[in-house]
């Protein structure tokens, strides 16, 4: 009897878990499924769960349309934005942890950065558009790298600040006594100690920048300079949507992140449990 109830419980557990996983996987599978169908099969009113006549036609068309260019833009922008954020956040957080600026700037700055993290970015978009326009940052990838700092910099500062705050000061003191300059201490003592934390933070920032849509939509108009999310939104908006091609781009845009999801998962969980402490 007891055994029987245990088996029922097990089965119930697996049924619930598998249905949750199904809900998550079906849309991703549907992307693959649709991207391999020919245009006629896609718009059939009876959706097919497997492509009856699998074809790579959609991928071919997408590449012909020059998707590489947009892929490359996305890579360039998101990696540059992440690199800048991490570097600036690391330097600033270290200063905030180890040095007392006058007028309680330390505290005010951290509160301000948190406020930036929670405000709706559209609020900044109109005035920033005018400023960027005046300094020639509209319609350029470097403009996007700067704009993305609104998301990635506050994030990076808060998380790296947490890591640095937890660092014991003894190592730095020892190095200073040995005659190392502050820069030397920062580069060869502090940086290696927070390496894992910084990697986790870069993953966050990279995903944020890779998927950013709003500024990429508003600040860049030239098709050659668009990033993948904006290309996708343009496909969705078209009168007769090319679903197969759209799904092919979607899959290509997600592939880099999905391939590293194992690594991403580890970093995310570590990052979260660290930042909760």
């Amino acid at each position, binding site marked *: 009897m007891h055994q029987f109830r245990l088996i029922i419980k097990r089965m119930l557990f697996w049924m619930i878990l598998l249905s949750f996983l199904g809900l998550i996987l079906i849309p*991703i599978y549907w992307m693959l499924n649709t991207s391999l169908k020919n245009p006629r099969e896609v718009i059939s009113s009876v959706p097919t769960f497997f492509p009856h006549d699998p074809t790579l036609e959609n991928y071919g068309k997408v590449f012909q349309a020059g998707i590489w260019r947009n892929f490359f833009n996305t890579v360039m922008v998101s990696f540059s934005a992440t690199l800048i954020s991490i570097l600036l956040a690391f330097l600033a957080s270290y200063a905030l942890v180890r040095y007392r600026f006058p007028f309680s700037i330390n505290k005010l700055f951290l509160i301000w950065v948190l406020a930036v993290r*929670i405000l709706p*970015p559209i609020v900044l978009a109109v005035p920033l558009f005018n400023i960027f326009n005046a300094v020639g940052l509209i319609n350029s990838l470097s403009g996007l790298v700067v704009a993305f700092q609104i998301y990635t910099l506050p994030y990076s500062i808060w998380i790296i600040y947490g890591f640095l705050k937890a660092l014991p000061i003894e190592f730095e003191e020892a190095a200073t006594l040995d005659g190392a300059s502050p*820069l030397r201490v920062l580069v060869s003592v502090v940086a290696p100690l927070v390496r894992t934390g910084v990697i986790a933070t870069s993953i966050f920032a990279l995903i944020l920048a890779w*998927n950013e849509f709003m500024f990429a939509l*508003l600040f860049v108009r030239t098709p050659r300079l668009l990033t993948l999310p904006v290309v996708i939104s343009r496909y969705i908006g078209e009168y007769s949507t090319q679903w197969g091609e759209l799904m092919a781009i979607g899959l290509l845009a997600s592939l880099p992140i999905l391939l590293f999801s194992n690594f991403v998962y580890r970093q995310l969980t570590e990052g979260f449990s660290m930042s909760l402490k």
Partner: protein
Amino acid sequence: MKNKDRISYNSFFYIIFAPALLLVLFLTAYPLGTVLHDSFFRYDFITGAKDYIGFQNYIRIAGDELFQRSFRNTLVFTFFASVLEVFFGVLLAFLLYGSFKGKKAASLIIIFPMIISTMVICAVWQIFYHYEIGLFNYVLRNIGMQPVGWLTDQRIALYSIILVDIWQWTPFTFLIIQAGMSSIPYELFEAARIDGAKKTQIARTITLPILSTQILLVLMLRTLDTFRLFDKVYALTGGGPANSTQTLSFYIYREGFSFFNFGRASAASVITLFFVAFLAMFYLRRLLREDD
């Protein structure tokens, strides 16, 4: 330390702090100042002339039916999306508590939605919701029900977008709650079990109270994030049908970037900011009280 050393020591910290400080101020303080300033002006887009008009923009907006609608929609979206995401996140975290074979693979799959681009997600759901070729209506027709205009029926469209947001962000609440759960010492459960407590009792009286801070935190994060809803509206409905999915962010976007009404866009921004600040304070006060 010698005076010269002192100066170079101080300037080192000023130099490494300055880039981040300046960039943050350039990207936020100056634009926010402009928004506040512009909200009191009438801005002629063609001539570039600015007239001070006091609170006129605010008064016009407060009486604007579309703005009221946007506000209401935003509240509905924020409430349902954030509460349900946290609810499902807690549910998943409890489901995956303890060890079983395949736990790691399951967790890995669960985080997929939150790392995929919102636009990609919107593209897939757009197909699911499609009136003629969509999976949802196919299922409805097969079980003998009328097809539904998921994104074209004004009573339903907003909730369809909520569903997409839940699919995308429940993994995030799950991850945070799971991280919180793993910090609960195992001895607590052992002690309760020895005292004869049942599993559901343990969950209700031990796990949930300890998790309450995490739940509040993640609820705050989701509330503030859902309040800024823009991408999904842009991609899935464009604010329609009949403005039933207009949100505050979308209202500001349209006033600013489609109609070039910088004054009204700014006034709407200021109102939105006040409300976001209010929401943040509401949660932060509770969170800080929990900490004591």
